């Protein structure tokens, strides 16, 4: 049996999918986590289950809604599990009424039933089942309650048939039935409604008779046909709710109490600022100081051991150098930051799963709107704090093309996890006690840069109105430890995998181009190496932000295009070969190749690397979402231009401050 999971955004579809299949799809307590369909097998059965992106109706306005509608309509699943947020049934049942118009059996899964009591709600599921003529099961996808009953219901085939209950007023029902009679196809009732609504997808089936019926109804109700149908649907939904849901005396919930603080007009923004500062202070400051030296020491010991061992088995100096100065130094420099990243991932995951991120999107919507963006743009920015690729992909939830393009161009400005090693290395060395503060300041600089860039783009290039941001605020939830650990593990493993693959590859290339001259002579002075000569040709570009013609910093920054962590890795390999140092902190040794860095140039270099064109993976994602190479090149040039200008400004201001 092929089962489709359909429901509103943030109704718990992916959580139910994970519980039913034992899988570990990404979940989050905010809307729009799933942007494509995912397939799995229900545990202990042969049933295939498909998790679809969240939708509010079967009228496709966004690409995820289209994915869900196309699947349900064209691929004809045997069963639809309509997952409904039991705590806000009125909103969810609108989609249910549309699903019940399809020629497909539907089970209504009332999710989050465990929260009903807290919200002083009682749902009569038998009454609901008899009114909708569909099977109803109360579940809690997060706690796993009711899932066995749901699977048993499917397995035993005890699902009620879908008789297409009449929900509209008589004249509208008559028109729908008349049209349906003339359609010899599946989902004829659903298609009839869509034909009356003049849905473009079914334009080929339109006729003068349908047009006349539409005109007649519009005249009678003195309203647009879509509005008439939507209104009658809502009237039906309200009636169903009235008969099935009893609201006891309302007690203020924890969510209400917390929202009074977190969504307070005056307190919301300062709280957000404090939380972000705390996260970076914890990740880069406290944990950074405690762990980097420790991991660095381990890498150093391993490096010494390998150096001695290879020499003892008659390896030539070049082979020892390749393994120690190239691979271990390059990969080790990036692995130093794993403990800090774990803390950052835990904090971001906590903000996502507790529901706080949704509040921030809601609160910042008004501010973003003033700058030509909306709260919808905030979702890609939040996702982008992990990795820019999914951040860019999640712009698919934005209907407005201009706003989507702006968000795609601006999302890579948010510091992703790959940029953390750059921040941690420079902030840790040059700003000592204030490293947490400096790290967080870069996050806020990114937000300010995004807002100013959006304002400029809106003024000169994208002149339309911002789209409306409609999102329901989810309940605050305690994070599920299992999901938290899985999420953090997935992200950490992904980072380690990059260090072991692309960073390793780049480290070998860097070692080779640093150890050989153009005549392929080994052991030349690094100043005469292939890499140094390339860097020297381009070092003028970075002079205004470094105050020095540094080929080492130039080639390291350019390698950020491959992967942002590579900037740190490259600096470690260059310092290792040029200055004969192996430990991260010694990269900036006073007499070394990077000894010219001071707090002003360090901050400027961080700013450039944070805001310049993202890695190739993210550029590829931008190309796919923007649609053309030309637009992608414009975006890359824009990002790099902004980064260069900001870097120069920061260096100028920083140098002035240092002079004072």
């Amino acid at each position, binding site marked *: 049996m092929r089962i489709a999971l359909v429901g509103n955004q943030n109704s718990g579809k992916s959580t139910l999918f994970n519980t039913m299949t034992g*899988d*570990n*799809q*990404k979940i989050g307590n905010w809307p729009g986590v799933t942007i*494509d*369909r*995912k*397939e799995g097998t229900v545990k202990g059965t042969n049933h295939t289950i498909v998790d679809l992106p969240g939708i509010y109706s079967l009228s496709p306005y966004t*690409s995820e809604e289209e994915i869900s509608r196309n699947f349900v309509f064209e691929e004809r699943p045997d069963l639809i599990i309509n997952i409904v947020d039991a705590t806000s049934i009125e909103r969810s049942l609108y989609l249910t009424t549309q699903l019940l118009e399809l020629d497909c059996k539907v089970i209504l899964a009332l999710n989050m039933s465990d929260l009903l009591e807290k919200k002083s709600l009682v749902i009569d599921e038998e009454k609901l089942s008899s009114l909708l003529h569909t099977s109803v099961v109360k579940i809690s996808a997060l706690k796993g309650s009711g899932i066995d009953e749901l699977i048993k219901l499917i397995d035993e085939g005890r699902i009620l048939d879908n008789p297409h209950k009449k929900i509209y007023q008589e004249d509208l029902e008559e028109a729908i039935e008349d049209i349906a009679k003339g359609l010899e196809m599946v989902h004829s009732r659903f298609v009839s409604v869509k034909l009356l609504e003049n849905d473009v997808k079914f334009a080929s089936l339109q006729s003068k008779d349908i047009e006349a019926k539409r005109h007649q109804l519009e005249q009678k109700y003195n309203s647009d046909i879509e509005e008439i149908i939507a209104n009658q649907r809502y009237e039906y939904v309200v009636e169903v709710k009235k008969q099935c849901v009893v609201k006891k005396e309302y007690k203020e919930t924890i969510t209400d109490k917390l929202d009074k603080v977190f969504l307070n007009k005056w307190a919301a923004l300062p709280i957000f600022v404090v939380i972000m500062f705390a996260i970076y202070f914890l990740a880069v400051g406290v944990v950074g100081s405690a762990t980097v030296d420790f991991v660095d020491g381990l890498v150093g010991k391993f490096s010494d051991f390998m150096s001695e061992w*290879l020499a003892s*088995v*008659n*390896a*030539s100096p*070049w*082979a020892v150098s*390749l*393994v120690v100065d190239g*691979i271990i130094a390059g990969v080790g420099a990036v692995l130093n930051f794993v403990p800090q990243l774990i803390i950052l991932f835990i904090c971001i995951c906590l903000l996502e799963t507790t529901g706080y991120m949704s509040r921030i999107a809601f609160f910042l919507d008004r501010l973003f709107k003033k700058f030509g963006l909306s709260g919808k743009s905030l979702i890609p920015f939040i*996702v982008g704090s*992990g*990795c820019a*690729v*999914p951040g860019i*992909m999640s712009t*698919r939830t934005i209907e407005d093309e201009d706003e989507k393009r702006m968000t795609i161009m601006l999302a890579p400005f948010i510091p992703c996890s790959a940029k953390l090693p750059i921040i941690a290395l420079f902030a840790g060395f040059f700003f000592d006690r204030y490293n947490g503060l400096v790290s967080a300041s870069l996050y806020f600089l990114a937000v300010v840069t995004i807002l100013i860039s959006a304002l400029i783009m809106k003024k000169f290039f994208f002149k339309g109105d911002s789209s409306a941001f409609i999102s329901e605020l989810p309940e605050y939830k305690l994070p599920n430890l299992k999901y938290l650990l899985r*999420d953090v593990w*997935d*992200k950490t*493993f*992904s980072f380690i*995998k990059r260090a072991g*693959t*692309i960073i*390793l*590859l780049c480290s*070998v290339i860097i070692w080779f181009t640093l150890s050989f001259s153009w005549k392929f002579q080994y052991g030349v002075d690094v100043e005469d190496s292939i890499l140094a000569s390339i860097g020297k040709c381009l070092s003028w570009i970075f002079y205004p932000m470094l105050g020095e013609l540094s080929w080492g910093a130039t080639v390291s920054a350019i390698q950020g295009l491959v992967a942002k962590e590579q900037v740190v890795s490259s600096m470690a390999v260059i310092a290792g070969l040029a200055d004969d140092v192996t430990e991260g902190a010694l990269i900036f040794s006073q007499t070394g190749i990077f000894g010219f860095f001071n707090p002003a140039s360090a901050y400027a270099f961080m700013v450039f690397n944070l805001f310049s064109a993202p890695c*190739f*993976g993210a550029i*590829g*994602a931008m190309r*796919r*979402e923007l*649609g053309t190479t030309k637009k992608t090149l414009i975006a890359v040039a824009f990002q790099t231009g902004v980064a260069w200008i900001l870097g120069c400004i920061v260096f100028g201001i920083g140098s002035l401050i240092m002079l004072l």
Partner: protein
Amino acid sequence: MTLTDGIILAIVVLIIGLIIYFRFFKNRKNPCAGCEYCKKCQKKDCHKK
């Protein structure tokens, strides 16, 4: 070049060859492969609109 050098070189070349193959050839149509966000995605063209 000693035998040890040859072995080291062969291992490094093999590792780099595998990285290049998996990174740039096998998954060239799906650059988001391995991303934690959609690593279990089974739709081959998930990155396309």
